[in-house]
């Protein structure tokens, strides 16, 4: 049985009850509580629907690792009961880069197009993870690093690998939520470390 902290952002950012940022965060109590509710909706859903819980923790481990957040990556990896855990770690090493990059619709913004890698899961990774999870990781990489390269073809690749429309919505929310959570944690850690009144 997976247990969940009362406030996972506080847990990951190292904010103790009663700390300065604990009270600061309470100014936006609804945002704080619903960030936690969002986490629970994704990682302790009443009904996992089209996306099994194990898939969610594979994706979360991958997303947090690609963001270079070792604490958050370990948090999700610890909840992963997965024979392919080592494959995920290997894929992270192959997939790591820096974003955002990608292309704009052709026109004046094309001058800002920034090339970058289109990641493909390695053959050994695919063998362990299977086609469905491999397709998810490839999509996740794009969402993390170069979301402006999105197209219907990317969604078709997920459908072809066995994802449903509703499953793609859940997968997209999962990655997008983590992009939020990881940044709130990063911001709060830096704020806590910045000397006050500097």
């Amino acid at each position, binding site marked *: 049985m997976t247990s969940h902290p009362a406030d996972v952002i506080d847990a990951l950012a190292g904010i103790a009850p009663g700390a*300065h*940022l604990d009270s*600061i965060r309470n*100014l*936006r109590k*609804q*945002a704080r509580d*619903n960030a936690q*509710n*969002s986490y629970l*909706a*994704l990682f302790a859903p*009443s009904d996992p*629907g089209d996306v099994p819980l194990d898939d969610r923790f594979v994706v979360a481990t991958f997303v947090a690792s*690609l*963001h*270079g957040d070792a604490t958050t990556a370990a948090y999700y990896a610890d909840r992963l009961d997965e024979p392919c855990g080592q494959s995920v770690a290997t894929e992270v090493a192959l997939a790591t880069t*820096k*974003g*955002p990059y*990608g292309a*704009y*619709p052709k*026109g004046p913004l094309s001058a*800002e197009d920034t090339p970058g890698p289109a990641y493909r899961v390695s053959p050994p990774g695919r063998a362990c993870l299977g086609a469905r999870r491999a397709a998810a990781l490839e999509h996740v990489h*794009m969402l993390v*690093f170069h*979301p*402006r390269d*999105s*197209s*219907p073809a990317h*969604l078709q690749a997920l*459908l072809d690998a066995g994802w449903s*429309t*509703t499953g*793609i*919505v*859940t997968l*997209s*929310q999962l990655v*997008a*939520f983590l*992009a*939020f*959570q*990881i*940044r*709130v944690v*990063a*911001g*709060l850690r*830096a*704020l806590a*470390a*910045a*000397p*006050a*009144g*500097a």
Partner: protein
Amino acid sequence: MTDTTLTPTGHTPPVAFTQAELGWLPWLEPLPNADLTERHWAGLVDASRAKSPYFMLLARDPDILKFRTLTDKDIFYNPEAGLPRAERELAAAAASRFNGCIYCASVHARFASHFSHRRDDVQRLLDDGVGADLGERWNAIVAASVALSATPPTFDTTHAARLRAAGLDDHAIVDVINGAAFFNWANRLMLSLGEPDLPAKG
């Protein structure tokens, strides 16, 4: 039923950042109206969102939509203390400009203009990008939002110190963090599940 993607035709994709009102066309089938249950209505939060293909697509997973919406509303609409609304919208627009979400940037640039009455400065953010000189307080907010939006994030103590030096207290800095971070959520949904449409002027 086999699920399929949708490929919009006959619309005008915007090719520049703009404060104009854009449409948004989904690449996957939104939930049909007839399929809305009580749980879906709860997920939509505002019943008027049943008219939006974006929210109707997200309504396929109603619980996360609901909590996402409630998070969003408190970060941007809660009037109590913290950062003025205009500058929360600036953080959202800056993150969207940096990630390349033309749709999200249009909405939040428009709100930033509305609340700040600095439409020309907001337009320079859109036209010239996140390096535009908007005065130190806005520059500090844009730089912080961009650093937080980088993948991996590069936001560090120097960004927090610069925000403090620009006059932001810790409540306001948390609003910058929440606002920019939230748009890393929104941008990825808007960019990857559909595309913007520039309606003909009429």
